[in-house]
């Protein structure tokens, strides 16, 4: 049972006593000015350490360490693979000779690319490869990765990452993204893994193509002229450029952020204790993929809030050990306007989950707005020296 619980809520929830939970919840839900246990502002992230290109055998790699001691390494490897043509194309090829006359069938796969060309595996200590959590996480991250489609017509990134992987009609790149969580998953590991994957993809280089058109691919031996998978402005000045409108923006790999709501407040980069009392936990995936540099929302997923499984507190009026000690009028249950449940102030009630529409839309707005959290995170990652 305890194992199932861990897997379902996907984090090792610390065992907090009902009094602690109530204290935390009340502090975090104070109107407008939540008091976080570590004194951060609601949108402030804990400092993290990041480095790229740490694995020599890969096309791109990154390591990120969060302040709570969790660390992840991601390696990206690319390999050239022959594009399997669809049945109709093959049939027409057989009839008409080596050159396909009917372009329709092959172009869909060759120009648009295919989602299965990106393969992702996640390893989390204590979990098997086929456990629900790693499988679910990798699918969630892969989905937003291949789902991000570039709308910029005249760049390499037409069709997003999938389109970038196309070499020509018969050949494509296949990406293997290996994600390794080095520490125990203290909090829900998705944001860490997503940020590390983002950074690894930013640092990924593919060898320069020498062949042209439909020839069999032939690459430049010189690694120095290799091209970034995601085109970069110029690696050294990336951090200095502010988010002015003149800045050329490029398609970027998606980033998934964990956002929680406590009462009416929206809190970013929650630590374990904060997740433990959250009303709603959301994983929001964003990316930047247009010329104008707007952020795009890729997906929102709700995460089972661990506060559901906590131990409830006992109000003094119902505490048998305090019979006669409390005047019956002392504890009046008040209706919590956010959850719509009756609660005695100061007593912990496990959350039933769910959040108001206004709270969720506020969350999305905070992430996406100009100069909002999403831009800050993407810019911070852009600023990491990729060499």
């Amino acid at each position, binding site marked *: 049972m305890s194992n199932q619980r861990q897997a379902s809520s996907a984090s*090792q929830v*610390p*065992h*907090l*006593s*009902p*009094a*602690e939970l*109530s*204290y*935390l919840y*009340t*502090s975090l839900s*104070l109107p407008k000015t939540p*008091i*976080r*246990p*570590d*004194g*951060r*502002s609601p*949108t*402030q*992230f804990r*400092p*993290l*350490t*990041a*480095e790229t290109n740490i694995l020599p055998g890969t096309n791109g790699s990154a390591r990120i360490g969060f*302040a*709570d001691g969790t*660390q992840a390494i991601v390696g990206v490897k690319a390999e050239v693979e022959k594009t399997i043509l669809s049945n109709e194309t093959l049939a027409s090829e057989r009839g008409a000779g080596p050159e396909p006359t009917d372009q329709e069938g092959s172009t869909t796969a060759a120009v648009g690319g295919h989602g299965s060309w990106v393969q992702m595996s996640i390893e989390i200590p204590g979990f098997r490869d086929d456990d629900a959590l790693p499988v679910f996480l990798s699918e969630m991250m892969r989905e937003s990765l291949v789902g991000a489609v570039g709308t910029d017509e005249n760049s390499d990134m037409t069709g997003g990452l999938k389109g970038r992987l196309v070499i020509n009609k018969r050949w494509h790149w296949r990406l293997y993204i290996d994600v390794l969580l080095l520490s*125990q998953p*203290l909090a829900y590991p998705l944001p860490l893994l997503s940020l590390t994957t983002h950074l690894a993809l930013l640092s990924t280089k593919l060898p320069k193509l020498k062949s042209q058109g439909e020839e069999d691919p032939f690459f430049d031996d010189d690694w120095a002229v290799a091209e970034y998978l995601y085109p970069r402005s110029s690696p050294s000045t990336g951090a200095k450029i502010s988010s002015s409108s003149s800045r050329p923006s490029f398609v970027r790999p998606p980033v998934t952020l964990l956002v929680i709501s406590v009462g009416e407040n929206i809190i*970013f980069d929650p630590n*374990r*204790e904060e997740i433990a009392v959250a009303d709603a936990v959301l994983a929001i995936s964003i990316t930047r993929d247009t010329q104008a540099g707007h952020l795009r929302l890729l997906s929102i997923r709700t995460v089972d809030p661990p506060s559901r499984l906590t*131990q409830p*507190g*006992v109000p*003094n009026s119902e*505490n*048998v*050990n*305090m019979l006669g*000690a*409390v*005047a019956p009028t*002392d*504890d009046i249950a008040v209706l919590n306007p956010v959850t719509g449940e009756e609660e*005695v*102030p*100061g*007593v*912990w009630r496990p959350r039933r989950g769910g959040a108001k529409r206004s709270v969720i839309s506020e969350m999305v707005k905070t992430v996406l707005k100009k100069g909002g*959290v999403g831009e800050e*995170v993407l810019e*911070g990652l852009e*600023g*990491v020296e990729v060499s």
Partner: protein
Amino acid sequence: MGITILPPVSDDIIPRHEDDSDDSMSVDSDEDVEMSGLRAPKRARIGNQTLSTGVVTPGEVVTDDPQWMRGHGTYMTPLSTSIIATVAVQSKRWKVDVAAPLLAQLPLSAINLPGGILRRRTSSDELQIRTFFSEGDLVVAEVQSVHQDGAASLHTRSLKYGKLRNGVFLAVTGTGGSGASSNSTKGGVGSNSLRPGAGSGMGGVVRSRRQVWTINTHNGGGEVDVILGVNGYIWISKHADGTAAASSATENVSITRMEEMVSTSIYSSQNDEIIPQTRREIARLAQCIQVLVQSGIRVDEETVMSAYEASLQVDLEVGDEDDEDEDSRHEGREYLEGAKSRRILELVV
């Protein structure tokens, strides 16, 4: 600025080797911790393999010294000190996690039952055992005795012991250095990767004269209690005056029943009303302790108090610097990290 991304600090494990004198028999040295990590040079001398790292893999010879005894010299729960524990299991008694190798036990007979001193223990109390302390509750208790095998027996027969409320919990490495277990259970602060140097095993709660004291906080925070459990568990809460706690729950109780009322409030899990200013100061104190722990400074009344004063001073300094921008001044200014924590440490040491 919402996010800070730092370049990595190389955190190579440098095997720390304090003294060559063979003090492995002294009770206070945490032999088991050192065997697994920090005593690489010594282990290389005992066993005849040369090891370059402090990592031991299964099957590797740790020692072939016949003098060495398993478990000997490991941390024992010290006698007669207040500790904070998590209630875990129960059947006529509670099993509590005290961050020691073995769970301690708190028998039903070792608590004050509500209803006065002359109250007899009955079988109905055994059935209702969960109404006193339940799974997941935090309890402050005193070690009454330590058994042969190292398991401790606790009691709460005093008004200052009982269930904890109105505050926050912190787990740091205790004197005995059983930090590994406290980290895994409560996610202690000892596991911080930003910790400068490999100072683990240095910091932690030190057994000192006073482990429970009250701070008169600034910024309108009122009085705040700090309990430093000798096992590395720390509780910071709003100050609860004994009689005030009773009178808040009971207004029309005769003076003869007062003591009885006080004792019942130790089983309450309902928080009092706490104003935001107090919550803010509690958060500040918790961070001060974390700053101390992360830099390997021992935690006692003196260091906590000076860190708290230092954090207030740092706040004033920072406030002076960027006075022109009201909004950004308040944005996360209570978060003590990086430069702020270094400044605090400068002031403390």
